[in-house]
């Protein structure tokens, strides 16, 4: 009996198992050591770090190709997807230590704030314009919701810098700045997305509406729940002591509980997870550092699971209007990132102006796909709104990410001499370092 046949006949509990088994298997294959050597090549790094292989697999097994996984499976996978989103939020939150303003250069923090605001304004503005003029939507609320989600997805950039030849000593600092700004900007993206999902309200006659009181209540309950979860998590981690099993109970239970509570209250699991992370990391003690390996080790499979889900959820049959949206967002992204990126890079290393690191900010952050997936599976009325259903929004973000990720590759094809010389310099520097 095939998995598909089994799934169709199975009970609800078993359907969860089928979906989980499928996702976990694919996530493991995608993140196994067997693919490590291939990942060291530029194309390999771009495709695997961006998660595009997992997205591709998701699309192949999804309802628009082999139909091995359909919407019903996504339903039963919701707990796992929520868990992954909560985990992503927690990881972002854990970066936000209170001493960051002291440790990081001011221009890095300023860069992250400017990028978040500019991206939401420019990409959100472009999305709003396309929805209003090309899609012909006359109601403001759905346009605002989609514009903010797409704007938030445009915040930051990929933190992967290996494929940009950043192992050159001269490019190490600019690459580190790009990674730091990307990490900080992701907080802005999650906040914008979280606030938007809280503000959505089902209006009269099924219309989509935005409400200040819903936003206020959503924000209050999210923050309170996250604060309590964070405090609880901190105490429980101390109670767990040095036991590995105990720590797993606390970590898995806490993430599942926080993400599940967020979903039950119809607020963002990413946002709540992030606030939980911020609370835990800013309370005194070294509890977390002992277990960093577990947290970091899970990053890849969790990312892969989310990318696979995005591939399954994505609707590639979207019409020409949606492709216009992709084009508009791409142009807006190019504008914002080419204005901001060089400033950040040259601020720390003026000689990096004409190097491959400059194309780094063009590439979309993987968090964008997580945000789009969260939107599509969140169960908000907006996700099924006919203007741009969740599946199409995910597809737009995937298309945008893929095109923007291939930019460095295109740059390599267009200017092979520069990349070749950079690689040679890097090798020479490595060799010198070795001899020394």
């Amino acid at each position: 009996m095939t998995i598909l046949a089994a799934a169709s006949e199975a009970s609800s509990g078993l359907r969860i198992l089928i979906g989980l088994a499928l996702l976990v298997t694919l996530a493991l294959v995608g993140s196994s050591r067997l693919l490590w050597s291939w990942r060291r090549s530029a194309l390999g790094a771009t495709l695997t770090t961006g998660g595009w292989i997992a997205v591709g697999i998701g699309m192949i097994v999804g309802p628009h190709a082999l139909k091995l996984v359909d919407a019903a499976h996504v339903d039963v996978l919701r707990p796992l997807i929520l868990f992954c989103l909560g985990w992503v939020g927690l990881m972002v939150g854990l970066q936000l230590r209170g001493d960051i303003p002291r440790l990081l250069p001011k221009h890095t923090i300023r860069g992250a704030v400017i990028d978040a605001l500019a991206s939401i304004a420019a990409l959100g503005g472009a999305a709003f314009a396309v929805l209003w003029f090309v899609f012909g939507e006359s109601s403001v609320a759905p346009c605002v919701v989609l514009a903010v989600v797409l704007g938030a997805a445009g915040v930051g950039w990929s933190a992967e810098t290996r494929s940009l030849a950043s192992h050159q000593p001269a490019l190490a600092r600019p690459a580190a700045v790009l990674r730091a700004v990307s990490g900080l900007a992701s907080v802005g993206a999650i906040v914008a997305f979280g606030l938007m999902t809280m503000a959505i309200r089902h209006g009269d006659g099924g219309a989509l509406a935005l409400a200040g009181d819903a936003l206020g209540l959503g924000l209050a309950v999210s923050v309170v729940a996250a604060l309590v979860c964070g405090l609880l998590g901190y105490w429980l981690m101390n109670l767990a002591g040095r036991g590995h099993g105990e720590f797993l109970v606390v970590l898995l239970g806490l993430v599942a509980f926080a993400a599940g509570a967020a979903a039950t209250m119809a607020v963002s699991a990413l946002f709540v997870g992030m606030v939980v992370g911020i609370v835990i990391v800013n309370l005194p003690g070294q509890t977390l550092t002992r277990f960093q390996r577990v947290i970091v080790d899970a990053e890849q499979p969790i990312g892969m699971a989310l990318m696979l889900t995005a591939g399954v959820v994505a609707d590639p049959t979207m019409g020409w209007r949606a492709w216009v949206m992709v084009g508009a967002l791409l142009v807006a992204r190019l504008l914002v990132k080419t204005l901001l990126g060089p400033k950040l890079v040259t601020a720390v290393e003026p000689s990096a102006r004409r190097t491959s690191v400059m194309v780094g900010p063009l590439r979309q952050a993987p968090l964008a796909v997580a945000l789009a997936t969260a939107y599509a599976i969140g169960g908000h009325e907006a996700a099924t709104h006919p203007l741009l259903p969740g599946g199409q929004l995910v597809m737009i973000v995937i298309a945008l990410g893929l095109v923007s990720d291939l930019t460095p590759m295109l740059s390599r094809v267009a200017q092979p001499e520069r990349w070749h010389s950079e690689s040679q310099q890097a090798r020479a520097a490595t060799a010198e370092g070795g001899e020394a």
Partner: protein
Amino acid sequence: MRLLICWLLLILLCFVVDLVSDRVAAQAALPYMGVAMNVGLLMLGAWLTGLLVKRIKLPKVSGYLVFGILVGPFALSLIDRDQRDELRFAGDLAVSLIALTAGGEMKWHWLKDQIGKLFTIAGVMIVIVWLVVGGAVFAGSTLIPFLAEQPTAVRAVAAVLIGVVAAANSPAIVMAVINETQADGPVARTTLAVTICKDMAMVVVFAATLTFCKAFTDEDATLSGGFLLAVAVQLVGSLAVGAVMGAAMALYVRKVGAHLVIFIIGSCMLIALVGEQAFSIAGKPIHFEPLLMGLAAGLIMENLWSEVTDPLFHEIESLSLPVFCLFFGAAGAGLELGVFGEWRVLLVLLVIVLLRTGSVWASCRIAGPMVKLDPAWRGRVWLGFIPQAGVALALVMLVKNAFDSAPWADQTAALLLGVIAINMLLGPLGFRWALAKSGEAKGEE
């Protein structure tokens, strides 16, 4: 004090979330939306309750169960009946993990020497418990409210089925208590091994009993050679599939070796998934037993590739705690406690529990000298066979389904669930005491 505050905070937070979710009923009603939160609640809450009850010298596993009951539909209702069904995957996962762990505990050279003894104890116990409990139920069936009006054939069938379910016990609880107390010694090893042998024997005994009972009450059902073939395929097939899975897992550890925690969860899901698939042999439906598959996989890995799979078993050990918390929490929430509301049924239930306990004790007294168990500890080993949980619950569901939920079958099932609830709650206490008294429980020091 902080433990109690954390516990109360968790419960309070659940109520607040429930209260807020009423505001957004449409979203909350989405399928599986509540599963993630319930998984987190059971994991954290059960673990905390385990720590709390440990302070009053009770086994942690009892705490996990109590927490499940407390948040389940019969107390605080934080987890309702529908949500409880959505948590069934926790049981499927746990059985596979427990079986893997149990298989990993079995050293081939020890097993080879003991296998005859183990099956003798298991066999004697099944026969005695079955005869005593089944016989007593049949003798007193005219006094049992829901059987009194039934024809003799139905009363006999109900008695046989109650007897056979009473013979089952719980590898999960045995494993959890051994794990908790870090016990290592003859009592722990013998109890675990006999429980597993008993489980293997129960596959045959229960399948035969059910077919026999159906043949007795239904003219279409027959007992044939095909039945024996089907049971044999189920048993041997489960072990063979498990062995192949074990070899594949060892290969993964050797070749890939990364993300072991996630790999273990995936493997357990696969075992549970294969176990759910139905096949047909000689016209008889069969399925592979997750418990036997996991056992064979663990046994193969531990005895053939122990050096390679050591890190895997280490991670399995780490994962045991979260899985036990979730599994026993969900099991507690899944208990049907309605039967305790009717005093006449409650009385019958208590009599069955006492008879079962007495017959388990008696069977160990008889089988112990037969297989020359060491007199120094054989008097305590019976306490490990009192707990009942997942296997017995599964058998009850099979009884219920086999008779198309006939009223007498439903009520028999409810009665058995009550018996299981008591054995589930009290069993771990006795077993932990036995381990402590035998000096095998390191965690108790």
